Every structure is written in structure tokens, then in C-alpha cells.
């Protein structure tokens, strides 16, 4: 269980409060107007944004080092190192030193195959399409197998069909690994598609997740204002 206990983020004139729990294995969409603090919320959980209050996972406070947290995060862009091959980018999730044993190399190979990139391991990101780049990043989260997966709109630049494909892949990965998912989205259809719960971030508050269907069918005033 992920708990945000009386968490407060202050950056200049920006404020965000959060005080809620996310149950293990939940799939939570994070929606809200631009600039409300969706990415900031994920950044705080990932360890990049200083905050007051506590964030705990299974009762323990999270480590200070983002890399030591039980978290995989995909950013809006720049999720791959452009000078490393696809396979190397995936392998970073296993061992950043890239000194892999034969079984480990096999796992990287399997992960690439699992996301549909069989045989493309030697390509550099620049030689891959946008969708393929996303697949590499997802393959890495698969192989890292952290219990918390945070997606900060990594598929925003993809076309609708491609995005749907990616979301389906995410759903499969989460189902396989049992990971808890927090996913920022601008599109309520995404939320409906794969998230059973939705958290609204608006007016300086990140609200506790609600069942997606109920929330979207009967939106509170802030959400209504956002949905228009």
C-alpha cells in the first residue's frame, strides 16, 4: 500500500497537498488541469521533488535515493539514452553496469520480445519509431519489476491507435507483475480504458482516488470545470 501522509509540496507560488492511500495492485489515473501538479505529484513519489510529510510503501518511508525506491517511472520524454542501443537501454533496468551474465542477457532478449521488438535490440533510439521507443522503455520497466509503476504521460506524443496499443501493453505488464500503477493522463478515455481508480488533482489538492466510472459519471465541480 502506498500512503501519502499529510504531504505538502511548495515550489515558489505553487502548492500541492495530498493525504491518501493507494491500495496495492490498484491502477490509478491522475487527471486534472494543466499546471495543477500531476507530474509534480509523481515526481515526489519518485523522489525528485522535495516535500513535507511522509510517503510510505507497505508502511516503510521511501528511501531518499530515487534509484533505491520501489518505483519505475517513465517521463514525458527522454526515457532512453540516445547513445545506447535498445538492448542496452533495457539492460540498464537490470544492471546499470551493463555487465550481464548469459541468463541476464536472455532476460533482456525476452523482455524486448515481450514488447514486440524481437531482433531490434541493436538499434539506437534514433533508428526506432516513437512507438518502438516507448516499447523499449516499457521493456525496461518490465525487467526492473518494481512494485510501483509511474507513467508521466510517456505516450502523449503518439497517435491514438499507437497510444491505445501502448496502454494495452501497460495493462498486460501490470497484470503480469502485479504492480501498482499511477498514470497521468489528459484523456478520460485512457482512464476508463485501464484504470479502475482515478485521482483528481486540482486547486492545490491531490484528491484520494475514487472508482473511475463513478467519478467520471458524476464529476465534482472541479472535475466538471476541467472536463468542460
Amino acid at each position, binding site marked *: 500500500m502506498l500512503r501519502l501522509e499529510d504531504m505538502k509540496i511548495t515550489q515558489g507560488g505553487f502548492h500541492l497537498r495530498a493525504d491518501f492511500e493507494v491500495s496495492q495492485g490498484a491502477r490509478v489515473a491522475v487527471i486534472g488541469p494543466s499546471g495543477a501538479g500531476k507530474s509534480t505529484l509523481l515526481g515526489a513519489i519518485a523522489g525528485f521533488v522535495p516535500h513535507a510529510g511522509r510517503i510510505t510503501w507497505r508502511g516503510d518511508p521511501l528511501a531518499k535515493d530515487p534509484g533505491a525506491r520501489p*518505483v519505475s517511472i517513465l517521463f514525458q520524454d527522454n526515457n532512453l539514452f*540516445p547513445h545506447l542501443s535498445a538492448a542496452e537501454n533495457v539492460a540498464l533496468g537490470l544492471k546499470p553496469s551493463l555487465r550481464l551474465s548469459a541468463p541476464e542477457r536472455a532476460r533482456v532478449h525476452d523482455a524486448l520480445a515481450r514488447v514486440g521488438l524481437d531482433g531490434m535490440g541493436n538499434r539506437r533510439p534514433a533508428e526506432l519509431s516513437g512507438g518502438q521507443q516507448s516499447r523499449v522503455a516499457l521493456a525496461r520497466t518490465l525487467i526492473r519489476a518494481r512494485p510501483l509503476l509511474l507513467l508521466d504521460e510517456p505516450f502523449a506524443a503518439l497517435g491514438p491507435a499507437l497510444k491505445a496499443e501502448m496502454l494495452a501493453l501497460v495493462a498486460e505488464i501490470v497484470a503480469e507483475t502485479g504492480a501498482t500503477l499511477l498514470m497521468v493522463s489528459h484523456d478520460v478515455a485512457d482512464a476508463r480504458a485501464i484504470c479502475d481508480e482515478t485521482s483528481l488533482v486540482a486547486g492545490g489538492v491531490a484528491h484520494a482516488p475514487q472508482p473511475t466510472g463513478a467519478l467520471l459519471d458524476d464529476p465534482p465541480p472541479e472535475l466538471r470545470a476541467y472536463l468542460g
Partner: protein
Amino acid sequence: MTQARVLTLVFASVVALWLLALNFGAVGAVALRAEGLTGLRASDWAAVRFTLLQALLSALLSVALAIPVARALARRRFIGRGLLITLMGAPFILPTLVAVLGLLAVFGRSGLVNDVLGLVGLGPVNIYGLHGVVLAHVFYNLPLAVRIILQGWAAIPSERMRLAVSLGFSPTDRLRHLEAPMLREVAPGAFLLVFLICLTSFAVALALGGGPRATTVELAIYQAFRFDFDMGRAAALALVQFGLCLGAGVLALRVALPSGLGGGLDRPLPRMDYRARAIWGDGVLIALAALFLLVPLALIVLRGAPHLVSLPAPVWQATMRSLWVALGATVLTLSFALVLAHAILALPRFGAAALEWLGLAALAASPLVIGTGLFLILRPIADPRDMALAVTMLVNAGLALPFALRLILPALRDVAATQGRLATSIGLHGAARFRLVTLPRLRRPMGFAAGLTAALSMGDLGVILLFADAERATLPMQLYRLMQAYRQDDAAGAALLLLLASLALFWAFDKWGRSDATA
């Protein structure tokens, strides 16, 4: 072709002509006057060997030491960090005369180090000789190397750092995936720059070499002029020096590889490292580097402070003159660098490469030959004294151009690569494009380049000695005259004044460049 493009190429041709005159016309004039080149002697080849050896050692050591120091500075944030970085840059902009005095106060026979060693019954350590020359060159160039490599660290896109942190990279992983590729790109350039600076070293080798074993090529040129009155040999030696520099440049370009780290959106991100031991190590490294670079400066300050207020009027007048020369040279250098950089991007590959090399060529030129050559060229036209300050300004601009170009060109390439299409697509051209798109992104390197030029120009003694007389003396020339006249107290005061003025100029321009941190 747009009007702006035509103008750029016209201005670039003017700058290129000046650089040709400076770098090659001067040697030509000297050779012409001597009615040809004279063959070199055995001792000249010994000078070539020593020059290469000391430059190689100096550059290797400077870069090798700069990497850990820059790394420590890159990942630490502490109060006074900016000030420390500025102060640590001071030795590079220090006039050699002053720098050597500061070093001797620390490492000389009666300096601090030997005083301490004497207390524990050791020593004395002798600073004179090859190791003294290398020590002085490292003192001089470590700040430059640190700044270049620090910029390399700053240029690693914050997105990559963020990704690295989120994947739990250890310091070793970070070194391998982020820092090593960056260093592969940046370090050869830093090495080349330091190597070239040391290749044309004159005053340091003369002051600390300890004798004729430590003769550099530039020193041999001086001997050819002053002892042998053999301008043909001076010109021949200048060409040898040029060849050495060219060879080094070609080698360094082969070693340097693009890092492939790509561009980012410059998102601000606090750098993090969570190991207490690393913090300790960084602290010790920064402290050691600061001690090495700042103690000699502190001794110059202590020695000069009591005599600063009582400096004679001519010193203050010279200071004003030097400030004007420095500001003029700065304006010229920045204009030259911007014009050349734009032209390099506008030209096809061969022309661009030729222009870039020409812009860097002054690093290889001998200041002595440049001064003499210009004198010979200008003498039939007018009284050199009347042109002393203008010539100093122009020569300083040419000599500082390699630094400015190296700073500005990559940044401009970056702007063109990342925002060129966007700007073109919305029809942004000419002055508006420069002001709105280019300038904000060039501000940092421009500020740094301006600071460097102003400070170097402030402290340069090069050509002015041949051209000016007492009424037109600059501050370094006045300092030199005070030392010649054995006015040691006034000289100490003037050295401090020069140090302060150089540093203030550098600080002011560099601050301007960094004042808009989000740009």
C-alpha cells in the same frame, strides 16, 4: 540568399582577412624583411623537443586534475560555490609576471612550502626546471580546464541525469554511461587548448625554466630577434611553432568524439549523490584545488594591499587606458566570434572548416612575431605610437578569438540544431531571430567569452611594448616598467590592481551571462 546571410558572409570575409594578416601576414612581413628564412640550429631543435615535452606534461596534468575537480564542483551545491568558481578561474586571467610572483611566494626557496618543510627538517624543494614550468602551467591552465569540463558536466541534459537517478545508477554507472562519453567529447578539446597555450609559452619558461635546458620555441624566437638579430630564423621558428600546433590540432580532432548524449529541454534538476563518502571526497578535492589556486593569489593580495592607495598617478592613468583596451577588445572579439560562427554555419563544409581553423589559428601564432610583423607592416603607413592602443585592441581580439569561438560556436550549432527549424518555420530571420532565439541561448557562453577576453586583454603585455611609449602605457606595461625601475612596492600594488581589474571584468561579464538562468 537572404540579406542577413549576405551581410554575415561579407563581415566574415573582413574578419578572415584580419586573421590572415595577423597570423600569416606578420610572419610574411618578418621573413620578407629578413629576405628569406634562415635554417635552424641544433639548439633550436632541442627547444622544439623541450617545448613539446613540457606542453604535453602540462596539458595531461591539467586535464587529469581538472576532471575530478570539475566533477566534485558539478555535483556539489554550497554557499559561495559561484564565487569560488570565479575566483578559481583567476590564475588563468592573471598576467604571467604576476602569476609567477604568486607561485614563487608559495613554492620558492623562501616560500610557504619550504618554510613548512623547513619546520619539519625537510627541503628545500627547488621549483626551477621542467617541473617548475609544468607546475606553473598547471596553476595557470587548471582553471581553464576545470571550467571547460564543468561546462561539459552542465551540458549533460538534466533529463539524462534524472533517468540515471531513477534507474539507481551508482557513481561508476554514471561515469560509464554519462560522464565518460561527455569527457570523450570535451576532454580532448580542453587538452588541446592547454597544450597549445603551453606550446607558445614564453614568460613562464623564462622565469621558472632555470636555464637554457628549458628553452621553448617562443624563447628561441625571442633569442633570434634580440640576441642574433636574425629575423629570418625568427620567422622560420614561428613557422615550426605553427606546424607543431597544427599537428596537435589534427590529432586532438581525431581523438574527440561526439558524445551522442543529445539535447534536452534544460529542465532544472538538483544534482544528487547520496553517499557520505563521496561528499567528503568532493569536499577534500575542492579544498585542495582551491588551496593550490588561491593561496598564491592571496599572497599577491597581501603583498600589494598596503601599496595600492599610494600608487603613482601614471599607474591609474594606465589602468583607465587598459580598461578601454580591454572593453574595445571584448566588443571586437565577440563581434568577430559571432560573425565567424554564423558564417561557419552558413558555409558548405570545406569553407566552414577552413574558417573555423582560421579562427583558432591565433593560438599557434607567436605574439613576438605578430608584434614585429605588424610593426613592419604599419610603420610605412603611420607612426606606430599613434596606433598603439588600436593595434593592441585588434591583436588582443585576434588572440582571444580562439577561446571565444570555441565557446560560442558549439552553442550556436546547438541552437541551430534544436531551434533552427522552428525559427525558420515561423519566418524568424535576421536581427529578430538573433535577439529572440539565438542571443538568449548564447548568453552564457558569450558572457564567459567576454569575461575571458576582457581579462586576458587587460593583462596582456604582448605587442604593446613594441608600439607604445610611456604616454600610452597600459597597466601591465606600467607594471613591467615599475619592475624594471625596481619599484618593488609600487609593482606589488600595481600587480594587485591588475589582478583586481582583470577579475572584476571577468566577473561582471560572466555574471551578465549567467544572470538569466532559465535561458
